[in-house]
Structure formats: C-alpha cells, structure tokens
C-alpha cells in the first residue's frame, strides 16, 4: 500500500532545480506531484513520478544524490474538512506526520494527500480501519 517517493538533494543555487527537471523531461518522466523542502543552503525535492525506477536511474547517472522513501497516499473528497477528517483519526491514534503535500485529482472531486509517517505500516492500518482510501503506488503512478 506504500508509495515510493523520490528525493533529490539540491544546492540552493541558480539552475539546480532546472537541471533536475530537464533530466526528468529528457527521460520522458511525468511528475504527479512534488514538494520542495529548503534551508538557506540546500533543498530536498520530493517527487511522485510515473516511473520511479527510471527517474532514480537517470538522476543518479547525472550525478544527483537520490533516495527513495516510502510515503502513503490517501484520497479524500475535495471539500472543507477533507484533510481534517484524516488528521482527527491520526491524532486520536497518535500517529506522527513528518511532512505532507497534496494535489487534486483530474476529475476535481478528490484530493490526494501524500504523507510521510515515521511508522507507515501503523498509519496504513489506522487509515484503512477508519475506511479511508489508501492509494497503492501502482495506481498512483498511473493516475
């Protein structure tokens, strides 16, 4: 049920993000969603892509530091309180969120929240028990 996220180490300097996106473009990789965590010196670009293995390979070949992290994608209706309904459950069950980011599905009805948990297995169990839709990687990459 987990989803693989690609993380790329980027220096905070002009052109470094462009370099990464160019490589993905040239390898014909589609980005589903992304987020950028940054400090004054460096950033970590986190991506959900349609082809994790290929993205991993081409980025490494071009000298980037890349790692793969397990994240969890959860579908919620795109309306007020959607995210809150998940947070309420996670809070009650004492599941910690390290970070999250989101995107809206093409149909416009649902949003997908990408969560990084310290213990993903426990989070998945809690979410499915409470009838949330956890999207498996295979489905998410192809969305």
């Amino acid at each position, binding site marked *: 049920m987990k989803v693989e996220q690609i993380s790329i180490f980027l*220096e905070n300097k002009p052109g470094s993000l462009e370099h990464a996106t160019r490589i993905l473009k040239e390898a014909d990789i589609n980005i589903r969603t992304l987020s950028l965590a940054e400090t004054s010196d460096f950033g970590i670009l986190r991506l959900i892509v349609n082809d994790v293995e290929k993205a991993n390979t081409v980025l490494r070949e071009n000298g980037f530091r890349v790692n793969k992290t397990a994240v969890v994608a959860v579908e919620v209706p795109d309306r007020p309180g959607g995210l809150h309904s998940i947070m309420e459950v996670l809070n009650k069950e004492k599941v910690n969120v390290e970070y999250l980011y989101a995107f809206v599905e093409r149909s416009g009805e649902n949003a997908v929240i990408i969560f990084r948990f310290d213990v993903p297995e426990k989070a998945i169990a809690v979410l499915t028990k409470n009838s949330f839709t956890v999207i498996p990687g295979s489905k998410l990459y192809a969305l």
Partner: protein
Amino acid sequence: MFYNEEFETLPREALKALQLKRLQQVLQRVYHTVGHYKKALDAAQIKPGAITSLADLPKLPFTTRQDLQENYPFGLFAVPMSSIVRLHASSGTSGRSTVFGYTKRDVETWSELMARCLVAAGLTKNDIIHNAFGYGLFTSGLGLHFGAEKIGASVIPMSGGNSKRQIMILQDFGPTAICCTPSYALHLAEQGKALGLDMKTLKLRVGIFGAEPWSVSIRDEIETIYGITALDMFGLSEVMGPGIAMECQEGRGGMHIFEDHFLVETINPQTGEPLPEGEEGELVFTTLTKEAFPLIRYRSGDITRLITTPCRCGRSHIKMERVMKRSDDMLIIRGINIFPAQVEAILADIEGLEPNYQLIADKISALDSLELRVEVSEKIFSESGSVKELQNIEKRIFKDMKDYLGITPRVKLVEPNTLKRSNGMMTKVIDNRRRA
C-alpha cells in the same frame, strides 16, 4: 633601546662563534636524549661531533612537521616531564596536532626574547599593554604576556573576541600599546567606528602585530586609522612562540631574528638546497638554547628573504622580511594555522562522510571568513535523507572544526561532483583574501 644590549649587539664574529658552540651542545644533547634525532643522524651517517663549523649545518637532516606529528605528543621532548613547567599545542585532532614543552629556563628565555621585542618597539615599564592575542594552548597570548611582565609594563590579558568590551577597555584603561593580529586590529577599528569612536583619540602609540601575513599597505592603513606605529613580530610555536623575530622602531622594514638563540637558513623548498643569504626561500630554524623541545633544521614552511645589511638600530642580528608566502598548503585564519589534512581527518571521523571538500577563505570586512563545502555522499543522503538530519551533519562538522581546530567556518553541504577540480584533483583550498 635594548633589553639585553650585550647580546643584541654582539659583533657578528662573536655571534657566529656563540652559535657554533651552542649548536654543538644542542646536537650532543638531542642525539643522546631524543630517539628521533639519534635515528635521523645515524641514518645520515653524521656524528654530532662532526659539526665543526656553521658551514657544516647543511649536512644535518631536516626536521619536518610530519616528524612532529609522528612523535605526538611528547616524543621529541629532550627532558623528562618532571622538568617541564608548561605545555602548549597547535590545533588539530589527535596525532595531527603538535605539542610544545617548556622547561623553567625555556620560559625564562622566551620571556626575555619577548621582552627584547617589546623594548625594540619602544615600550617600557611605564606602558600599559592591551594584549588581544589568544591565551590558552596557543603560544601567542601567554608568550607576549610574560615578556610584558618582564619589562615591568602593565599588561591587560584581554585575549581575543568580545570586541565591544575590548573597545570599552581601550577607552577606559588607556593602554599605550596594543598587540593582536593585524586583521583583528582592523576589525576593532570598525567596531570602534560603529560606536562613534575615533581610534586616534585613544592613548595608543604602538601596535605589535603578527600571527598572520599582512602587507605594507595594511600596515599603513592601521597606522592611519589608529595614529600609531605598527610593528611586525614573527613567531612560530614549534620553534618557541611569538618573539623569534621583531621589527625595531628605528630600522623598520624587516624583523631581527634573535640569532643568539636561533640559527636560521633559507633553502629552496623544492630541492632542500641551502640558498645564499638574501635569496627568497623557505626559512629553516635550529633552536640553540631550548631545553625541552629543541629542533634541528626545522622546515617552517614560511617563505621570505633574509636581510643582511646592518640596521641603524645597532642590533647585529640578521633581519627577515615579512612572510607573505608558504611552501605548503597551510591556511592562516584569524591567526590560527590550519592544514587541509586536519580538516580531512575531521571529516573522516564523521560516519558516512566522504572527504570531498573545499575550503574557501575570504575577507568579510576586516576579518577572515572560512567556508567549508562538503559534497553530500551517497551514504549520508540515503541513510539520513531528511532536512533535519542533513542539518545535523552540518552542525556536527561545524562543532568538530570549532572544537579541534578552533575555527568557526560556515559549513555547507553541496551536490556531488560540483567542487572545482583540476586534472581530476579536487582543489582543496581557494583563498580569495586580499593581500595587498
């Protein structure tokens, strides 16, 4: 003015005779008490008694910084610890630092030579000396301190840092002399200016500066801002500390090396061949009177020229020009000596880091700044890929640099293969500081 007129003005013939006698004594002593020297002299097939004139000096093997490190901490001491009254050390992790020992008589000699420096700068017991050289394991602060007490001056043991307080004391205590690194003098002047203080209104009349390279134009700048005479002092912790050579007030241009205690040569740093006096080369020192930590033909790494023309001050001792170059990759940051190998050792001790790094020295206003760029390794990024973990690694590098080397660089993780390389070799040091 002289502190020890007899020895400072000793005619050169007598000085050379004294040097030879002392050289022969120190050779006998190190041959019989320090394993390293016995081995080195035996390997060179030289008996200590074979040195019968100063012209024989080049027959003796050099002592290098590597020899010092290999004998860390006390391997080169020529006396038992019970005879040692003081220990100083250079920065660096275990085995990459050097420890300097002093007997009671060594401290006495050192104090006298520092006293000679202060008197050469025109200071007396009526002066108040603001000593902003660093105290502690480094030799500069305490070395100068003992000399100041020896001439009976009033010494303010200020040490480095805490600039606002330094300004306050300069105003309130009214010192007549200041001692620190030249860049710190410029930094203090900037602080003073920011606080609305004209440095020329202070009672200072003389400044003694050293521990880092500084040009004539920086000297002129300091003299103008402070309205003082700025004099150059040379020191080397391995050889003794500050007070090995001093610029006199009368002569200017060059520092007298106290030749009754040190024998100096210049050599070609590539071949090791001795150079005629006056040609630019690497300075090589032999200590003639040190008891605890004598050095035979120690290669200083400092490149400069010896000046043999007599000085109008009356001192018979040879002079050296200011040191602006090194024969190795040593960096001097705010008066602290750093070798890339020391940085490498620190990075190697941090789990998962590869020693792909670059040191970039710059000047931010008057003070040196150092940036340490380290390429993110595969291991670090795959095992500690979060922002927080990477920041912790930066902090750890910073802390180790501060703890072991006494410097506080800006640490920056960078992408792999981005540090400048020439012919496949990483350029480890980039020095953008203005030297003119």
